[in-house]
């Protein structure tokens, strides 16, 4: 009958709306469900996973030595021309010329964090750091030189 269907429609509609309102009331009253992270405040406790790709860095040991041989594998692997390896020739104690890096220039502003350079590196000289607050006021600050001044290649890395 029309009138029965009419009333059923209304009751069904009210019921479906009430179910939704019950759900939102639940969240309104249960504040422990809140998932907001208060970012700048939680900096101390914020731990990023060790694989997080923030920027490329070159680790140095205590005596300012790195593992980079200057083979330009990373430069070739990079899709955007982010890395530029500038090489020089060192004279080893026994008088031979040896290729070494002068500068490893890294353009953070071009980097897409694809991890291909890290994969390509044969001597594990570079790795991804977990930093992520990269904004600066001047674009030139984003061009970084990864090797420390005066650093040398580690003994035994070929």
């Amino acid at each position, binding site marked *: 009958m029309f009138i029965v269907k009419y009333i059923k429609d*209304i009751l069904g509609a009210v019921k479906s*709306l009430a179910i*939704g*309102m019950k*759900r*939102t*009331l639940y*969240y*309104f009253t249960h*504040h422990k*469900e*809140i*998932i*907001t992270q*208060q970012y700048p405040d939680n900096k101390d406790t914020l731990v990023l996973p060790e694989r997080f790709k923030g920027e490329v860095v070159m680790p140095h040991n205590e005596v300012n030595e790195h593992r980079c041989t200057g083979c330009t594998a990373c430069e070739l692997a990079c899709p955007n021309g982010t890395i530029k390896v500038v090489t020089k020739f060192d004279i080893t104690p026994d008088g031979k010329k040896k290729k070494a890096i002068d500068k490893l220039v890294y353009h953070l502003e071009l980097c897409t964090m694809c991890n291909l350079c890290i994969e390509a590196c044969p001597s594990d000289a570079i790795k991804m750091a977990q930093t992520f607050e990269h904004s600066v006021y001047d674009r030139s600050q984003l061009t970084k030189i990864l090797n420390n001044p005066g650093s040398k290649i580690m003994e035994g890395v070929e």
Partner: protein
Amino acid sequence: MWSFSHIADFIHEWLSSTFNPTWTLIIEMVIAGVCVIGLFAALGLVLVIMERKVSAWIQIRLGPNRVGPKGMLQSLADTLKLLVKEGMTPSGADKFLFNLAPFIAMIVAMLLFAPIAFAKDFQLWDLNIGVLYVSAVSSIMVISILMAGWSSNNKYSLMGAMRSGAQIVSYELSAGLSILAVVVLTGSLSISDIVMSQADGWWIFKGHIPVIIAFIIFLIAVTAETNRAPFDLAEAESELTAGFHTEYSGMKFALFFLAEYMNVFIVCAIGATLFLGGWMPFHIGNWEGFNHVMDWIPSSVWFFGKTFFLIFVIMWFRWTFPRLRIDQLLNLEWKYLLPISMFNILLATLMAIMGWHF
């Protein structure tokens, strides 16, 4: 006792004894005007922060929590921002109407404060057709929306305004009819009479099913009338970007914003007055002790408590439901709410004649 009516009486007596009657009237009007504007600003700030907190908690967020203690001064900061923002007028707009529209919205909202009883014996203007006055004046609101939509010279605005016109004209009907159910039972249009008639129990309890139905229809209709979600078709963010106020910015936008919240407050105040007893405390039959405790709570707290509860319900609607489509909106009114409220008013009249209510 320390209450609004005492303060009002004291001021009135003092003014009467100091000045002549004309000056007394003028000074009292100024005080009332300042109070209304002050209340306006205060309520605007409170309601905005309330909406933001309600929405945040429903959406498992924290909400504003940076400005002031627990973010309570956030809306003050927002107001400051809106004040210093440039108020732009689009080049193709009808400048006079474009600038007039927000003020009309504001003035309408202010006018509606006149007959509301905020506390015991505390009312700006106890006119004998209070309810009629409210429903008549509140429908002028649509003029400001139409004006804003038309004068903006923006297609989105125009569509929002046209939607709003159709919507408010329709929902006025069932809002009026549901108010009428209480008026029939009370036998008076005066707000103070309606409140006094609930001294022995609120209408929502006394009036059985007809008043409960009227209350639900009233809530739905006023949600639509104030352009709140799920009936916010005039704004319809995802469809019309911002509807009728797309082109407004700065303080002019803030006035629309404020007027919307004021309208919500007023319709909720009317709802609280008609159905939930206004400033009348909650009494249960012959429980003397309980009733005394209830009486001890100031009447203004009762009034604002009820009003804010209704405002919360309307906000709760907004953050739960999706928006209706324009044809569904009109279907809901003309096929469901209007027939039901007409039938309901018959029932209420029958009840009033037979004296079936308590």
